[in-house]
């Protein structure tokens, strides 16, 4: 496969598309599919057939368009019309309206801030191409960066490009991607591996799923580029088994890329070869931690081990291993295609580029968005997200999943980047944003996340294994009004112990939701404690019982 071959495929694809008068895109990613978008697609196809518009009209399935709250979504491409909440019964009306006045009843507003304020790099193809056809990815300049790089750049050159872009790991910690690549590149090893971490487990986060389902070739291209840069010839995508559609599309994408010579031996006629295999996660949240993930890929129990040595030095089967998150790798093809300077101009000085967020909870526009780093939280939640529904007041936003924290109204004007969120006592994490309204009890929020950490603790180290269970019980007592000031003091002490002494990031960050809610909403804890003290003074025995 050469640049010329790619542009031939690309041209043929564009010509075929131009020949069609109307292109109707139906979202067939998980969220819309769960609302029967497959039926919608089927009915649209039938309607096109029945109305004799087969020659001038084509219906195709595309990936996530982002506005999951209003699904199923259908877009008429050239006319720039979006339909939302489409039912199979709407199909004839949509086909009738082609070329004329759109069906106002179900028409969505593409000029709304939700669409207009976004800037898409990672999601640039999501909802625009058919994820099951490699030709459409190629027509969107896919694999151009790979072939171009393999024939014109040295591996160190690629590392330098990534370094200059300022890209930081999108999995949560924000480690400089270029530095990680350089370390693996320099590590000595007879073999090296690239792993794509698709074990997205934070409650309320679905960024990686959307990318894998909507644009799988982007990940394969990013991995091949990473393999070339660090000197690896084998890659693994670690996807959680709970994402069957992502797995199916990824498998198909690997086959298509292999068939076209974009994966496998001597890619683009060069000496570089790269293979990708899929490994399925068995449902443990801790396997998102890189050393636990490696153990799981090796076939062992998914438990973390102490670092150093870091995977960059001693990873999969002891060989140097590069582990990047799905979203990190999804940035790579575009960075190499448009140049690092282009990427570095987006975002803030320390957090370059864009970030994908999954909006969930008490927010009008639940769904997936991508915005430049540094956009204030208020703009994300109220302008793009449409604010809190049902006239309720905003209370807090939880970022970073179980490792993150809750940010109150007073923190909303901070720019959304790695450093600012850390200052607010939370983290960027993988990009989940759960909005809570005035009806949420913050003690219950902390209890929910602690229960999650307790269930997902691997059980290896004592503070995380027993500490999370004890903290969950204390939070249950506080929430039920059975606890006194003694229990609250003990909870704070355990937060300190578990945070300071746990083996891996799961335990070290498990107290964060408690600490941040205690910091911003201490009054809620105290009113529960007051109730508990009153009950104790009234000689009502606490339900937990004395040990």
């Amino acid at each position, binding site marked *: 496969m050469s640049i010329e071959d790619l542009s031939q495929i690309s041209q043929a694809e564009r010509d075929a598309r131009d020949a069609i008068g109307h292109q109707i895109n139906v979202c067939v990613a998980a969220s819309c599919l769960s609302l029967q978008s497959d039926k919608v697609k089927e009915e649209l196809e039938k309607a096109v057939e029945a109305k004799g518009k087969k020659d001038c009209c084509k219906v195709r399935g595309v990936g996530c368009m982002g506005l999951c709250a209003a699904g199923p979504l259908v877009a008429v491409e050239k006319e720039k019309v979006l339909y939302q909440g489409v039912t199979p019964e709407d199909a004839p009306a949509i086909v009738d309206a082609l070329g004329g006045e759109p069906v106002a009843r179900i028409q969505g507003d593409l000029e709304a801030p939700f669409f207009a304020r976004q800037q898409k790099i990672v999601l640039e193809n999501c909802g625009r191409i058919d994820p099951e056809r490699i030709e459409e990815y190629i027509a969107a300049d896919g694999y151009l960066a790979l072939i171009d790089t393999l024939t014109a750049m040295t591996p160190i050159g690629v590392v330098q490009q990534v370094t200059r872009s300022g890209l930081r790991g999108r999995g949560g910690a924000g480690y400089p991607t270029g530095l990680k690549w350089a370390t693996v590149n320099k590590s000595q090893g007879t073999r090296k591996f690239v792993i794509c971490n698709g074990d997205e487990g934070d409650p309320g986060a679905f960024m990686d799923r959307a990318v894998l389902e909507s644009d799988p070739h982007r990940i394969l291209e990013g991995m091949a580029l990473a393999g070339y840069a660090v000197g690896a010839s084998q890659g693994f995508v670690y996807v959680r088994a709970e994402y069957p559609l992502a797995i199916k599309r990824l498998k198909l994408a690997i086959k298509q890329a292999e068939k076209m010579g974009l994966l496998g031996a001597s890619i683009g006629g060069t000496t570089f070869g790269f293979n990708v295999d899929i490994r399925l996660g068995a449902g443990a949240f801790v396997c998102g931690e890189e050393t636990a993930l490696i153990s799981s890929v090796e076939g062992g129990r998914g438990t973390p081990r*102490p670092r150093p*040595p870091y995977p960059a030095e001693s990873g999969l089967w*002891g060989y140097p291993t590069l582990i990047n998150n799905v979203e990190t790798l999804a940035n790579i093809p575009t960075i190499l295609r448009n140049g690092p300077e282009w990427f570095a101009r987006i975002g803030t000085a320390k957090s370059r580029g864009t970030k994908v967020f999954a909006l969930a909870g008490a927010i009008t526009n639940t769904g997936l968005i991508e915005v430049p780093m540094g956009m204030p939280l208020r703009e994300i939640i109220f302008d793009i997200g449409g604010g809190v529904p049902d006239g309720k007041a905003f209370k807090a936003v939880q970022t970073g999943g179980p490792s993150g924290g809750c940010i109150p109204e007073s923190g909303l004007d901070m720019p959304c980047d790695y450093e600012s969120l850390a200052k607010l006592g939370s983290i960027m994490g993988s990009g989940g944003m759960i909005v809570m309204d005035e009806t949420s009890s913050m003690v219950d929020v902390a209890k929910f996340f602690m229960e999650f950490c307790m269930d997902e603790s691997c059980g*290896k180290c004592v503070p995380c*294994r*027993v500490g999370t269970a*004890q903290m969950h019980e204390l939070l249950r007592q506080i929430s039920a009004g059975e606890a006194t000031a003694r229990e609250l003091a003990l909870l704070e002490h*355990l937060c300190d*112990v578990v945070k300071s*002494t746990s083996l891996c990031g799961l335990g070290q960050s498990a107290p964060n939701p408690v600490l941040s809610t205690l910091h911003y909403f201490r009054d809620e804890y105290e009113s529960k404690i007051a109730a508990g003290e009153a009950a104790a003074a009234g000689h009502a025995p606490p339900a937990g019982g004395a040990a």
Partner: protein
Amino acid sequence: MSGRPSAKPAAGAPSSKVKTLTIDDRLVSAREDESILDAARQNGIQIPTLCNLDGLTPVGACRLCMVEVKGSSRLFASCVTMVGEGMEVVTDSERLQKYRKTIVELLFSERNHVCAVCVSNGHCELQNLAQTLGVTHLTVPYLHPKLPVDASHERFVNDHNRCVLCQRCVRVCGEVEGAHTWDLRGRGIDTRVITDLNQPWGSSETCTGCGKCVHVCPTGALTEKGKSIREMAKQSRFLPYLTMMREDRSE
């Protein structure tokens, strides 16, 4: 320590360098592939541990051996942190004492450790730790789990009520005896040691009956049958000798 898997496939080249560091203000020297814990022990400085045992791969699971290193606000598990030139290590501070006490308390709260009726009373590493650290009572509530006792083996007993999940039995069986009878099942607070695929110990087809697991077990979880209260003393000293006498186990 020969039990540690080498991060780099060293071809037996005796190229490791010697580093100088201070532990509790005492100047000590150690090979660069030795842990802070090794270096401290060689110099008579005792750091509390429970999962660590000379002769087994360190896992850093109990978190009792955490130490402070000057210049970092983080704590380091001394069993898995290698020495470094000029490192200044503090093994005993008010903060470390506080954490260690709580970790021991958490272990006592997790299972049903009733010393008074335990065959290992007086010979138990957990009990010794509690005494050394001054854990006289618990500030965290007991969890009182309902746990079984497996007495199906003709010579040994596995009492889950006294297990601290240090994984010494798992490691000695896999790394030294080579049988890999022991492993873990479940996760978090529901983690348990198991024999074979969670079958009764007595029906295990892989167990050789060597008893190494019993003697490396720090508590009364694995014991010999026929022992009464206070009678079960463990002999874990065989392990360093055994591993030393074996030629280069890493090959």
